[in-house]
């Protein structure tokens, strides 16, 4: 099975199995990754699954949707490679993906 790694803001790594077709918010929530809440259930309406994609992987995760873009701009601080986990669907191509968890999502 494909894998993704979530990296805490203190550098701790969590490598988890990532079923193809699930979105990254679901994968995080199903693996109890602290800091990813997914409150709105995946509708790009809460930004509680905000992640920073490792720059090496960013292009492969696709483009931000309009709703996603507007939710991201209301976060106090975001990186250039910020995404909402719920808007990234896991694919074969993303096997090995590395996502960093922002500091505010304690």
């Amino acid at each position: 099975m494909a894998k993704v790694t979530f990296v805490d803001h203190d550098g701790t790594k969590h490598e988890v199995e990532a079923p193809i077709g699930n979105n990254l918010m679901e994968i995080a929530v199903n693996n109890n990754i602290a800091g990813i809440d997914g409150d709105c259930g995946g509708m790009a309406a809460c930004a509680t699954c905000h992640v920073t994609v490792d720059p090496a992987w960013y292009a492969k995760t696709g483009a931000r949707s309009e709703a996603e873009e507007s939710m991201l701009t209301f976060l106090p601080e975001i990186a250039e490679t910020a995404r909402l986990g719920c808007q990234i669907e896991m694919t074969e191509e993303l096997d090995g993906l590395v996502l960093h968890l922002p500091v505010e999502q304690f």
Partner: protein
Amino acid sequence: MTALKQTTLSDLPLSDIDPSVQTRFQTGEHFEVFDRLREEAPVYFHESTQYGPFWSISKYKDIIEVEAQPKIFSSDAAYGGIWIKEQPKDTIRKSFMTADPPEHDVQRKVVNPIVSPTNLHDMEKRVRDIVNLVLDDLPINEEIDWVERVSVEVTGRVLCALMDFPVEERLDLTTWSDIVNTDVDAGTEITDEYKKLEALAPMIKKFKEMFAERSAMPPQNDLISMLAHSQETASMEPQQFVGMLVLLMVGGNDTTRNSISGGLDALNKFPEEYKKLRENPELVDSMVPEIIRWVTPVAHMRRTAMQDIEFKGQQIKKGDKVIMWYCSGNRDEDVIEDPYTFKIDRKNPRQHVSFGFGIHRCLGNRMAEMQLRILWEEILKRGWVIETTGEPERRFSNFVVGIDSLKAIVRAA
């Protein structure tokens, strides 16, 4: 009143029920109304209520769907804003809460830094100092009003810190916040929006003075200074910056205050949960969002349909008033297991609609959680048990779930 007692709510057809009746929010009977709406007609058009016709959105997921489409469901004051009761146009104070994009985005971004991780981190110690100051002042084994002594004190002092407002005048913030949220049908002397504005004259004067003062000073890290020095907001009309400050004052005051009070009430009504908390203080983290779900400090928000739209099989017409009942979404069994039980160790406790969703989602949600968390951390550290000695006195309102008084006794370990 007698008629109401003879005919129970469950006997009435939905078309005869006005879900906005304020007294039911005081007794808790509103939950019965919303249970029926979710079950029988989750998207329902009430033809006749005290506010005229409106749609009720009562299911968790439908609320999110409405919030996720701000272009269709507008918050703009020009169409009715976020208020269930129509407001006279000349009394409206506009803010980003009652604006749609792009205006909304520009204004909201100005105050965003106040809740940045860096600022939240800096606030943590200040909030802890405030909480300790308030708790140190409480008598043991003596009946107190928890609202007055704790909820008002903690939130008022934190708000002073956020605004750099004189702390000795903190009760003014509470008073003004309460006036803003007064239901004009509650039977107080504030019987309409014009009276409300009159009563708020001292606030408007004070905020204008502070705005001018901060404009003349170098920028500092408080909300008023941020507004006074930001390119986007520095040149705002007085009515606009007062609107912004009112939003930040009410948002940062009433809601958290009522969550502090409602949380204590919940712990006393579910003593097993309170015991669990005392034995496992680390459960504060999951208890805090559960308190916010349980209390649902803001019961609803209004939107206005900007076009005809079919929504969940119903035909919503352009111009229709749409009410999202957060108090109902937070009791939706399809999403929240056993929703009428207060459980401090839920698996996904942040799954609630109390903060709303989408672009208008509560700006201060982490600040609110922080205040509640630190308060309970410090109470537990002291080994105190806070016993309520009566029922909370609930406010006449279908908007702010307000607790005006809650008697309690602090028992030391």
